[in-house]
């Protein structure tokens, strides 16, 4: 018995040593970007499809949650609408976690005869890639992922939308509301603190809250922001708790990038105005909901399904924009929004489309008190997280230019991460 214990202990120590050894590894050298960027945003005219072409396609969808999640609901509605518009057969799989279940679901959809499969959540990506390798004759389209342009697989594609433009507009609406609160004497200018609930602390979320903040600060210069993370895409309890924490910290307006109604209902109870994501909350929160930005995935799905039906090749990345209709704002809740919000948003929207306003204009933000004139972002995702691509181009951060998914992950002045 003693011998066995000694053996076990020895083995444990060996493994402990192995584990320690890895920490001292040298950081890898920064590789030059060698990938052709293949990022498209052209819509597809579905009226050119013939009935015979449509018949050849069957579409499968994989959702992280079901329709109780605002993000998944938005994606699901788009899926049904796109398939109805085209008249194509489809299969839905809901509540598929970001694990081996996603690969299993993808393989099952292929088995059910689908020749194009969509998945909607960031963590699904590596499992979709595995399926794409195994089923080369099927097209796999993954929303919000980052690896398609580096994966080198002709049948794996990423899509996202320039939702930072939508969030910037949401931020403008928030800034106007803050101005109104200052004018009415409810808060002083230096109390104009926004609270933001993020899901995970990576580029997609950081890009989102930074654009929101820059939008707010463009109209309310004294605005500051506190951010907290739930580390979950969908958790009504955690999001509610986060809202309470931010409100107790003195935040007077909230926004979020997480998918439940946890925070909005808390805001409605406390009378805190908020800007939402994915869809309107005007019905449940008539007294505090201002406006929401959302991605209209229909355009993207029509492009992918349409091209598969035509037998055309698909780009590695597809990016929806304000201009091609993939980025939208919901109706403004006039009971809560500051007077003149609609007109101002229309004006800013036009300027964004025309390129007169740039969301990540380097003259509008600083890091450590200094302007940013060069920043290498991790664009080519090889699992090594190496900053590889100069992303400050012509005085702005080139967001969703090289690839569809956001890569802005700079911590700018004015935003405090209260979890750090």
């Amino acid at each position, binding site marked *: 018995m003693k011998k066995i214990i000694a053996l076990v202990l020895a083995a444990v120590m060996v493994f402990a040593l*192995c584990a320690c050894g*890895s920490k001292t590894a040298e950081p890898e050298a920064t590789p030059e970007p060698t990938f052709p960027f293949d990022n498209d945003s052209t819509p597809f005219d579905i009226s050119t499809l013939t009935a015979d072409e449509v018949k050849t396609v069957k579409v499968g969808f994989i959702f992280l949650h079901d329709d109780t999640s605002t993000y998944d609901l938005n994606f699901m509605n788009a899926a049904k609408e796109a398939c109805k518009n085209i008249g194509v057969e489809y299969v839905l*799989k809901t509540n598929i976690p970001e694990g081996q279940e996603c690969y299993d679901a993808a393989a099952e959809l292929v088995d059910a005869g689908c020749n194009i499969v969509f998945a909607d959540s960031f*963590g699904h*990506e590596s*499992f979709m890639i*595995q399926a794409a390798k195994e089923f080369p004759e099927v097209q796999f389209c993954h929303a919000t992922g980052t690896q398609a342009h580096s994966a080198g697989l002709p049948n794996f594609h990423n899509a996202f939308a320039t939702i930072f433009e939508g969030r910037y507009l949401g931020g403008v609406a928030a800034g106007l509301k803050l101005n109104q609160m200052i004018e009415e004497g409810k808060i002083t200018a230096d109390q104009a603190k926004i609270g933001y609930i993020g899901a995970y602390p990576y580029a997609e979320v950081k890009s989102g809250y930074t654009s929101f903040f820059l939008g707010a600060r463009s109209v309310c210069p004294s605005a500051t922001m506190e951010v907290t993370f739930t580390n979950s895409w969908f958790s009504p309890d955690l999001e509610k708790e986060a809202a309470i924490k931010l409100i107790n910290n003195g935040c007077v307006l909230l926004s979020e990038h997480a998918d439940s109604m946890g925070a909005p209902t808390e805001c409605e109870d406390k009378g805190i105005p908020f800007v939402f994501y994915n869809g309107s909350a005007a019905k449940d929160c008539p007294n505090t909901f201002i406006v929401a930005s959302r991605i209209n995935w229909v355009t993207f799905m029509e492009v992918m399904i349409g091209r598969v039906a035509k037998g055309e090749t698909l780009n590695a990345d597809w990016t929806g924009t304000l201009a091609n209709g993939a980025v939208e704002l919901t109706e403004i809740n006039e009971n809560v929004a500051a007077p003149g919000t609609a007109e101002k948003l229309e004006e800013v929207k036009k300027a964004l489309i025309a390129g007169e306003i740039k969301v990540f204009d380097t003259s509008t933000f600083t890091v450590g008190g200094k302007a940013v004139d060069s920043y290498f972002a991790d664009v080519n995702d090889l699992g090594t*997280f190496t900053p590889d691509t100069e992303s400050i181009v012509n005085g702005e951060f080139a967001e969703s230019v090289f690839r569809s998914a956001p890569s802005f992950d700079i911590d700018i002045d004015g935003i405090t991460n209260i979890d750090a």
Partner: protein
Amino acid sequence: MDNKVRNPLFHVAKRAALPWYKSWVIRFGAVLAALIVCGLITTLVTGEDPIAVYVSMWEGSFGTTRRLWVLLQNIAMLLCVSLAVTPAFRMRCWNLGGEGQALIGCLCSAACMILLSGKLPNWAVIVCMIVSSILAGAIWAGIPAFFKAKYNTNETLFTLMMNYVATQLVAYFCVVWENPKGSGQIGIINPNTQIGWFPLIGGQKYLLNIIVVALICVAMHIYLNYTKHGYEIAVVGESERTARYVGIKVGRVIVRTMVLSGALCGLAGLLLVGSTNHTLTPTLVEGRGFTAVMVAWLAKFNPIWMILTSLLIVFLSRGAGEIATNFELNQSFGDILTGVILFFIIGSEFFINYQIKLTKSGGKEE
């Protein structure tokens, strides 16, 4: 006041042991009843033809070659965990920690794949994975076994609680090794180098697991029925005092058997990570540690019968999932149907061990 003595309509009495064919008739009846109820529920919810519901159920397992392979793989993995908990159960030591023991095996395999990748040759990584995951499973079961043997702690609670420790550890390391940063997910490990991925046998993804588990199944049958260890386990299970009287060191048998049990669970974890999924999530074992308890019980701890009971359970749950997809229901609907089926199967054991006697109207007991 009503002075009549009220007699209940029926009462429950323990049965004498049923002949094997009668008990199987009851079990078969339970499965049939479960299928009818599932068909009814689906028809009521969707208005679909009940026959179509059963056809989808069948198709879910046998519809295509790939589904057949998945069915066999799922049977193999469930069987592996069931075989693992069996020796402990035969000893009447209730190892409910199969889930955690397998998960900690998964954790160690994934750790080797992530930390040793590029530092050791592929074969050495695989050897480390095998050794560490089996060892980890053994330790995870050995801890409660030690306390049971030494201080007579309750192994049911202890092993159950170890599950939660394992789940939280895995959740923690999923964040430590997250890929990409900030996502809280590991994703597929070494997708390009395939370091630590077990080789495919005959190009079939699931064949290795099936072969390994088939070998374990035969070995376990022999171990339990034809070896001294197997006999000691049976004696300790019947009566610890008898075992002590005939000179068996009970504590030693408990620890040895639990360690074996945990080691096999760790092996199941190894197969899940190294051979099939190449990832690590807190849900990777998919509740098999708990389903295994039922598989083992239904088969009366007989390794060969367990093949059939795992087939039954995997078939039913795959079918339930297929129904949910085909009729555009939420995937949770599949879970509801699986729940209904398990309820009937577990319920049937009640009717095998007990009988319900109707009380005669005269107030006299039967």
